[in-house]
């Protein structure tokens, strides 16, 4: 009985992996390069920049927290931030529609839009 259950476990694991892979590939396949960079603070879009115009800007969020957004060569990234984990800074630069860089502690999201 145990052997039969382990076979089911493997089926489960493989299907989960396949679903994850499928979702990931679908998103990748339908991705296109974006035209604008949106800054979303606390769920509300507060600014929108053209991705073809290079700029560096500081985003201030609640409690005087800040993230520095850089748009260069058609890509957007965050180069410095006041949050403790700096995951947003370590993130690779984004350019495809829908790609985001999220700073959860500061509740800031940079999103590429059409």
């Amino acid at each position, binding site marked *: 009985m*145990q052997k*039969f*259950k*382990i076979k*089911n*476990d493997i089926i*489960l*694991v493989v299907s*989960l*992996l396949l*679903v*994850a*892979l499928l*979702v*990931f590939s679908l*998103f990748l396949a339908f991705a296109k390069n974006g035209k604008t960079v949106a800054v*979303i603070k606390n*769920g509300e879009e507060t600014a929108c920049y053209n991705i073809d115009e290079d700029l560096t800007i500081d985003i201030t969020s609640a409690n005087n927290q800040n993230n520095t957004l850089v748009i260069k060569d058609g890509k957007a990234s965050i180069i410095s931030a006041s949050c403790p*984990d700096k*995951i947003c800074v*370590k*993130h690779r630069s984004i350019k495809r529609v*829908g*790609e*985001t860089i*999220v700073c*959860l502690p500061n509740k800031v*999201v940079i*999103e590429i839009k059409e």
Partner: protein
Amino acid sequence: MKLKTKKLVLLSILTACAVILSYVEMLVPPLFPAVPGIKMGLANIITVFLLYKFSYKEAFLVALCRILIITLLFSNALTFIYSISGAVLSIAVMALLKKVNRFSTVGVSIAGAVFHNLAQVIVAALIMQTAEIVYYMAALTISGIIAGIAIGLLGSIFIKYSSKFKI
């Protein structure tokens, strides 16, 4: 709900254990800096144990208490929402798989881990209003499977040896 004293004491001790396991996990530096919120989920050993030894109700009760305590001690309301949605979906899925009785403890634990992550990704997508956090699902599914195997094995060892004690 009338609880026998013995069961009440046992559940309380296990809640304390779950809190400690959760705390110990926090001390470990993040495994992958690129993916925030990846944890081993050690406290789920207790959840899996309770699911099999008693039922999903006890598992959820202890998980709820553990999440409340940890949130009050260490985190904020946002973490609470993430943790509780993860717990609700994962325990629901685990209870379902256990009922179907076609998967081993490890398999159930794997599903629990993956769906826990799925719930958190969905909550994150809703809060941050972006759908593309789904990109994280690939990494989270893999880490969920690995964590699920580890927690499931530890949980089943715990279940096996607990039969030596009268509970």
